[in-house]
């Protein structure tokens, strides 16, 4: 079938995901805010009252900024990885561009992410931080994160059709990555020799960029601004190639 307009379909798929998630829930979108707030509270308690790292100014806000970025990544990646499997009905019975399934799942998670970013912004302004011109870079940084997750998810969702273990691989990777992203520690605490590696981890890079922009009102470091788009582009390209090669026989394996 010739699809002249992917936009309308993509939009509908994203909204479908978003609506289904909150339909028949009394608290609705509030859940998007509750989870990061609880995580922020717990981590702040542990790392200011139990472990006592060198004093970090507005620790809770730094924790929240890390959690919001990490949450988007981990939830989007996991739900997009199973998106082909959980939409087996569509894949087997409806001719459509199947790439849109993982991509729309990532974008639907992106809506939650934006809600959480809204929360972060409110708390930032409340704590006395001001909007600065580098904020204009934020949409670009977030778009790069979304592109990275899309690329990763295209690969893992296609593999998940053949190896259902994929979702557990992703879950485990998420658990490990939680510790490797500067959520409850800051970039300056990382020993010098590991820092350049951190910049290749796109999620850590996004957190670093976000923190540089909102807390220090400065341009994120240049090497980071080069590596992040590079890594995102590579993952996206690889994702599309892998997906295209594996999608031919999806219907036979679901």
């Amino acid at each position, binding site marked *: 079938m010739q699809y002249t307009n992917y936009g309308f379909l993509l939009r509908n798929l994203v909204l479908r995901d978003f609506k289904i998630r909150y339909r028949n829930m009394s608290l609705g979108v509030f859940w998007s805010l509750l989870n990061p707030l609880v995580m922020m509270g717990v981590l702040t308690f542990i790392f200011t009252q139990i472990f006592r790292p060198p004093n970090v100014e507005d620790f809770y806000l730094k924790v929240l900024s890390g959690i919001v970025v990490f949450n988007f990544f981990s939830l989007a990646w996991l739900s997009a990885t199973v998106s082909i499997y959980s939409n087996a009905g569509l894949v087997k019975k409806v*001719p459509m561009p199947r790439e849109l399934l993982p991509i729309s799942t990532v974008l639907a998670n992106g809506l939650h992410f934006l809600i959480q970013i809204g929360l972060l912004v409110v708390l930032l302004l409340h704590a006395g931080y001001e909007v600065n011109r580098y904020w204009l870079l934020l949409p670009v940084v977030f778009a790069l994160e979304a592109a990275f997750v899309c690329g990763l998810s295209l690969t893992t969702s296609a593999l998940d059709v053949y190896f259902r273990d994929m979702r557990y691989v992703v879950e485990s990777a998420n658990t490990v990555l939680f510790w490797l992203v500067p959520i409850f520690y800051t970039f300056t605490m990382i020993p010098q020799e590991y820092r350049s590696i951190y910049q290749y981890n796109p999620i850590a890079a996004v957190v670093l960029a976000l923190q540089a922009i909102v807390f220090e009102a400065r341009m994120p470091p240049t090497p980071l601004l080069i590596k992040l788009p590079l890594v995102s582009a590579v993952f996206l390209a690889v994702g599309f190639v892998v997906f295209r090669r594996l999608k031919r026989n999806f219907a036979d394996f679901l």
Partner: protein
Amino acid sequence: MAHVRFQNVSKIYTRRSRQFLFRYVWDALRGRRQRRDSGGFYALRNVSFELREGDTLGIVGHNGAGKSTLLSLAAGLTVPEEGSVTVQGRLSALLELGGGFHQDLTGVENLYINAALCGMTRREAEEAFDRIVEFSELGEFIEEPLRTYSAGMVMRLAFSIAVQVEPEILLIDEVFAVGDKDFQAKCGERIREMRDKGTILLCVSHSPETLRALCKQGLWIESGEVVMQGEADEVFDAYLARKGAGQAAS
């Protein structure tokens, strides 16, 4: 010019041992054609036909004969291991009742998603909205969540969308089974109208009676192989005769 062409098409399903999966995925990733396992079975073997504008093909056969596989191939949902399938033209597939529907969403929400899945643009979907709702006869129910619908109502909505897409090729799999007589008659009417405008129609059923009114050509398959191919009435009569004989014998 819209057309559908099957050339010596075979679809083979293979057993999937773990080693097979690894090798299979590895080959696919390297862009190689997949090797086939020796233990595969033919869901469809050596099927050929060609349909041009206004052609209507009714496909009959018993359960597991390969009818649905044939439609999946035509819809491009799966690819043949041997031979080639060429499909050109805007295609709409009704292979399952409300394939893209979600129970928690309302009729309207499902309508837009499905219209988009059928390849409509936003403008086309908005233009077609009233026609679809009217054809479906759902009235006020269109605002209700799908889980409150009866099977017949779901079918009416799915069908209304599929026929309002103005496809050049329409695939239908057994979906006439649900819905009342009046609505069935209306659907038949609408399909004949589309056929007369040049829409290619591929219909599958295990009971040829519903196909007679719609199809000029017939294809009878059993166990993946073509038993008979030709004029619809001849093929259907032969199929019914064999079916009757089989039932009498057992």
